[in-house]
């Protein structure tokens, strides 16, 4: 499409705003660090070094971003479809558990060329099924999805523990009598290859990027996506247009769950290579924040996931090198989230003022089909 809104027309301040917000959050964080008797410059230096210091660290940052991105893409679908999916955490677990079950039973007997795609499919489907349940309950029984997904996260956690301490437990753990809740190692045929050892960057990064592009195309360039968004924006109008509202509600939660399941799948196949207690805890929630930061746009989620990946890896480096309690980092992350989201409004208001000054039409706050199409080019 025509590139009417060229980058030159764009407001550089709007792009800088999140950066400024992060900086401000770090300034507040510096206060906390000083109170702890730590040198903030040293702390942030180690954070930067931890996230981007060398190729290896950069790769680890990217590795971290992979599951976040996949979860976030799924969240884009559901939120765009007007369904608030808080259940990515559980969907991710279920996907990972399912792929583990598949891998340790039949996965090993298949050649990699078959085992990997099948495993991905299994993980996706399991997450999708777990997402479909609250979707179905919302569409046909009017059960609020915020409630059901919060509850289903807890159910998934217990399910995970149940399976890992029972049917899926590593047979060696039984032999030894140690009974650690973890699965056997996944057979090599389902591993996602490492791209740049010693970092754990794996081929899952391509899956995540591909998923982002596919979901972007799906949402903005196909009738299916159109309908998902129509249902999300105005259910009455969607019904009027002959779109089955319940069906698309279920569908958006299903796809959303599927992608969260895929996040778990890719993580287990690429990083941990076995299911363990404590696997990917919190990624489901971080993924929601990543998606919202990325403006609920699958492509916007890419830089957003990278940013969060960097925040996480940087935080660990900081804890390791200057020995601040890990809690400092969690508090700091909270501040970053709050500051960045607050800067949003300021940018929006500024955009309106600018538009008024320039005399152009009022700015599109929501992304609509063609403006996005133009942006993509």
């Amino acid at each position: 499409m025509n590139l009417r809104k060229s980058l030159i027309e764009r407001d550089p301040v709007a792009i800088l705003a999140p950066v400024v917000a992060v900086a401000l959050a770090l300034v507040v964080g510096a206060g906390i660090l000083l109170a702890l008797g730590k040198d903030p410059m040293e702390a942030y230096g180690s954070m930067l070094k931890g996230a981007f210091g060398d190729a290896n660290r950069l790769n680890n940052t990217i590795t971290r971003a992979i599951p976040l991105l996949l979860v976030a893409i799924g969240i884009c679908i559901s939120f765009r479809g007007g369904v608030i999916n808080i259940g990515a955490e559980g969907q991710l677990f279920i996907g990972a558990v399912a792929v583990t079950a598949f891998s340790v039973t039949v996965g090993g007997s298949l050649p990699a060329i078959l085992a990997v795609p099948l495993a991905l499919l299994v993980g996706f489907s399991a997450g999708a099924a777990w997402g479909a349940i609250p979707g179905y309950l919302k569409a046909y029984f009017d059960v609020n999805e915020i409630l059901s997904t919060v509850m289903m996260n807890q159910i998934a956690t217990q399910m995970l523990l149940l399976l890992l301490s029972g049917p899926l437990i590593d047979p060696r753990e039984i032999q030894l009598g140690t009974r650690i809740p973890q699965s056997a190692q996944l057979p090599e045929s389902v591993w996602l290859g490492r791209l740049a050892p010693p970092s754990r960057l794996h081929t899952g990064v391509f899956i995540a990027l591909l998923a982002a592009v596919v979901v972007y195309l799906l949402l903005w360039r196909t009738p299916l996506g159109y309908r998902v968004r129509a249902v999300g924006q105005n259910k009455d109008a969607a019904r009027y247009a002959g779109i089955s509202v319940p069906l698309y509600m279920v569908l958006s939660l299903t796809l959303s769950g599927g992608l969260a399941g895929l996040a778990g799948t890719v993580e287990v196949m690429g990083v941990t290579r076995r299911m363990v207690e404590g696997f990917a805890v919190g990624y489901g929630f971080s993924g929601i924040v990543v998606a919202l930061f990325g403006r609920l746009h699958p492509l916007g989620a890419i830089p957003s996931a990278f940013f969060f990946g960097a925040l996480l890896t940087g935080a660990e480096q900081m804890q390791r090198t200057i020995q601040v309690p890990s809690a400092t980092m969690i508090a700091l992350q909270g501040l970053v989230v709050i500051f960045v989201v607050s800067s949003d409004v300021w940018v929006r208001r500024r955009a309106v003022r600018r538009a008024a000054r320039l005399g152009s039409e009022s700015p599109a706050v929501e992304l609509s089909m063609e403006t996005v199409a133009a942006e993509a080019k």
Partner: protein
Amino acid sequence: MMPPTTTLPSGHTRIETAALQGISKRFPGVLANDHVNFDVNAGEIHALLGENGAGKSTLMKILYGLYQPDEGEITLNGEVARFHSPADSLTAGIGMIHQHFMLVPTLTVTENVALGIRSGGPLLNLKQVRKRLIALSDAYGLKIDPDVYVWQLSVGEQQRVEIVKALYQGGALIILDEPTAVLTPQEVDELFVTLRQMRDEGHSLIFISHKLYEVQDLSDRITVMRDGRVVDTIANHGVEQRTLARMMVGRDVQFQPDRPPVTVGEVKLAVRSLCAQNDRDLLALKEVSLEIRAGEVLGIAGVSGNGQRELAECIAGLRPATGGEVILNGHSILSLSVQERLQSGLSFVPEERNRHGTIGSFSVAENAILQNNDAPQFLNGPFYNFEAIRRYTVDLIQKFNIKTPGHETLLKNLSGGNVQKLILARELSRQPVLLIAAQPTRGVDIGASEYIRGVLMQQRSSGVAILLISEDLDEIMALSDRIAVMYEGEVVGVVDRDDADVETLGLMMAGAQRA
């Protein structure tokens, strides 16, 4: 010099003169008000006229403290007043009845009124509010049940609540922004009685409407706005509608559309003993039977809430029928999905254009393909062909004269009249067998109304069967070939247009007579 002040029966001090001087207000891309001067005196009804987007509501929102003017000032009784919020203007004795009602649907009538009381202390005294509310509604002849929830009320009743609310708050100056757009003729008459009474007591009233005869009927002075500027302010002494229309639009306006004679064809829609329930599970359609032929307009007249909405929704598949039959083009459609009905030649211009007809956060182009979102003509393999969609939309925009900055503009930035035109354009371009048009010109300015009515007549000529639902009897009379009157879910009579007169129709609508 302070003019002598008197107290109004509703408790507030009269506002002898309220004046807006040199008001300018700029929005992104438009100068909504351009150095506007406007004033209103106690004991006067001052009408404000203008096409959609002329800047009427903006001006009034400035007077009410909702917007701050970029330039200019407001004076009350000669003193400069600054309103930072409605709380300020309410304190000064200004009330406003908005184009879109400002009521909380989940609260009762009494609670809605109580909400506006700012001196009541921390505890609610609903009993007292209720008592005064009843007294007020009696005094002004406004029938209201104070204990029902607002969501249970018809629009006419909501309107009355708005007025009582304004009176309760002691509004000495009351702004009415298109109060009649959603009222039945009877309700309009009742409203006018109330307004005149208020004027005579010394209230200042500002009245906005797109209906010229109402303005003519009611007002003492008339101000016409166009493109954010005041065209003129004139006293209402025998002004002709034609003159007003000219001032508004800048050209002559044709009030009655051409109705060329049409030979009707076969029956396109047959409704037989249709029954359905409303949102509150009460029987809303009782054995309704109708027929419409190709090239025929069947007008449904009736006070809103008598089953017209349910009838349209039942035919369109948005509401399940509990009995009866609907036959479109020879095929029974009751068991079909909405999608299938659309495919078998049904087009529907819904009553609530923003809720049902369009998606505000989608672009004009996206709204243009609402039902056809998977039509092969817009696809290129599995993906959209944006160029095709653009061409299609631009074509509609041009053909139907839709005012929009472009096809990428978000729909919510279009004015009501233009939204309506887009819906009509979309529905007609799908080449319907049957067109259901519900309130097609409600709240639409005369220029656009003229256009929309003209388009409906063209469709009639080309053989489309049209079901026209309107509360505007003039519209019904102007467009229909036959008129069916609905009362309490029943068709109480069907008359030929040439045999119909407003009087009889009015009686039938009130349930006092059957044909």
